[in-house]
């Protein structure tokens, strides 16, 4: 696929998705009397920040043609580590949070090292760390220990408002803006798409491919640690099962947002729209008094619909035009 048609694809896909999000909003607003209230919008934000962060960090990873299945497990491990540092090592929450962030980056570094130095496929590496991180979290707590009774100053991060928005929403906005600038406005981050399109081509163009790839996994680890801290502050509890299954929600949001799972095509704002579409759907169904199980079904249908709706017009156009192949090929004389 050539670059211009790729760009057109992205734009068209995101436009479609934007309409879907608007339609969802209007639909649920009509069905649920309290859906459109400020309180509920904040609920949606609050419940979405952790998965949203993971999706944001997953976007560069998938753009380079990789995948990171370990972020949900790393969230759990980081939550446990944060709890341990705070309760058992007696560190103040800020220091414990700092250490957790460093640990998250290191854990991402482990993925990066295995993928770039040993040239193992990201799917396999992160499938391994997916089990490893969750297993470590369960081993540290023996599955039973939970960390709780955090000070209110820390819970403020997850449960209160600051300057009108839920506190963690500010962090989310900062990370979203940062990753958006990185991917769309910095030469450094623009190479992610080049790598995703053709790693060899990028290498010949002078891009330090392995270094850039390592960077996205470290970033994913760091953001997973941040999500862990916010998660702990929101629930007021850290337990080994934190973030179970979140990696799949994040990947769904990224792909729904128009990022190609093969890499090279995609955008951060697409991911944000993808996150919004899923979050609004999940929350809105409750307000429309529909059973929660429907959400999973509709998310899947939405994903398939959004993906095909951006491909169908092209297929349609190709069908309307006379097929070019017979015209161009030199007719061979019948024998």
């Amino acid at each position, binding site marked *: 696929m050539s670059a211009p048609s790729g760009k057109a694809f992205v734009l068209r896909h995101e436009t479609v998705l934007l309409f879907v999000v608007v339609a969802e*909003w209007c639909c649920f607003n009509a069905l649920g009397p309290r859906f459109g209230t*400020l309180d509920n919008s904040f609920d949606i934000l609050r419940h979405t920040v952790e998965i949203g962060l993971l999706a944001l960090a997953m976007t560069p990873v998938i753009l380079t043609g990789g995948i990171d299945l370990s972020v949900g497990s790393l969230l759990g491990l980081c939550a446990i580590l944060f709890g341990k540092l705070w309760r058992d090592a007696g560190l103040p929450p800020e220091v414990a949070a700092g250490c957790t962030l460093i640990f998250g980056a290191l854990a991402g570094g482990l993925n990066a090292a295995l993928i770039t130095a040993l040239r193992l496929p990201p799917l396999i590496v992160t499938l391994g760390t997916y089990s490893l991180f969750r297993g470590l979290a369960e081993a540290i707590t023996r599955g039973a220990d939970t960390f709780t009774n955090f000070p209110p100053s820390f819970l403020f991060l997850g449960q209160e408002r600051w300057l009108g928005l839920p506190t963690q929403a500010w962090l989310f906005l900062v990370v979203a803006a940062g990753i958006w600038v990185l991917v769309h406005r910095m030469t450094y981050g623009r190479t992610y798409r080049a790598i995703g399109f053709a790693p060899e081509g990028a290498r010949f163009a002078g891009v330090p491919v392995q270094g850039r790839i390592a960077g996205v996994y470290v970033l994913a680890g760091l953001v997973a640690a941040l999500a862990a801290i916010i998660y702990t502050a*929101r*629930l007021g509890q850290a337990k080994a099962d934190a973030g*179970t299954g979140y990696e799949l929600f994040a990947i769904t949001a990224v792909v729904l947002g128009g990022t190609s799972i093969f890499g090279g095509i995609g955008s951060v704002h697409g991911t944000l729209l993808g996150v919004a579409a899923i979050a609004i759907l999940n929350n809105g169904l409750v307000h429309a008094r529909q059973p929660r199980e429907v959400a999973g079904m509709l998310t899947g249908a939405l994903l398939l619909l959004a993906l095909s709706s951006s491909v169908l017009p092209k297929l349609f156009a190709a069908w309307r035009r006379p097929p070019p192949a017979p015209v161009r090929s030199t007719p061979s004389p019948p024998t």
Partner: protein
Amino acid sequence: MKKWSLLLTAVALFVAGCGKSPESPASGSGAGPAGKKITVALLPKSKGNAYFISCKAGAEKAARALGIDLLFDGPTESDPAKQNEIVENWITLGVDVIAAACENREGISTALRKAQSRGIKVITYDADALPDARTFFVNQATPEGIGHGLMDEAARLLNAEGEFAIILATLTAANQQEWRKHIEARLAEKYPKMKLVAVRPCDDLKDKAQSEATALLSAHPNLKLLMNICSPAVPGAAEAVKQAGKAGQVKVIGLGLPSENRRYVKEGVTDSVILWKTEDLGYLTVEAAVALVKGTLKPGDKTFKAGALGEFEIKGDNILLGKPFVFNKDNIDQFNF
């Protein structure tokens, strides 16, 4: 710049949505004894679990009897944050009272406290939250009730005479220890002719329970009864007794779900399964929730009258469901959980 405008639109959308009529936050509704229909939100640990489906059946009966709206929702997947999300959604929806069975004691308490601060009443059932996050806990069974229930049933089956053994989950688990303590206390107090010859752990595994039971049967030829106080052990022990050809000679009783044991009970291997009536638990929970909203149930009350179910004792802030129920050959077909 097209991308910019897209991004801006997306943000604007969120903001626009947020900006819409911040009508008085969910609290206003409060209790509605005069006029407005009360909405009770019932939160199970997990939605598909037969145990909670049975609770729901009882809750629906109570809802019909009282003429209230009942919401029943819970996690379907193993995401521990889901219960909190559901409670927070209910706060926004503006329900009158939330009745929760708590999967994550400390974690859910955060959300329940938030509900209380918005004027929503909160009670718990089946599994308690932290005491400051709810007004009452509908306690389905005290350790004493379970211990005495099991011991009395064993004594009834053996005419208070003979050897028996206990199979439990682990020797260290807190609830198992608690139940064992009450079983042994009851034994010492009321049944001098009965003798506890062995206590074996099965790690909450059915096959381990089966091999432990087989070992017990050969080690103690005079054994008259196996008492199983964790749910996988009941069918496990029954299988061992059946395979040893001792059905009827060695009785099997235990704490478990009727559905897991129906086969053995009907075959006459297992004599009785002890548990509370989950439907009654759901019924009582909804009755108590509504009474709390109407103000007819207050902290400090000693008894509570729950419609068709009659009167229940309140101990501190625990509403006691009462004695466990004995499921046996005659009644087990009426229960499907």
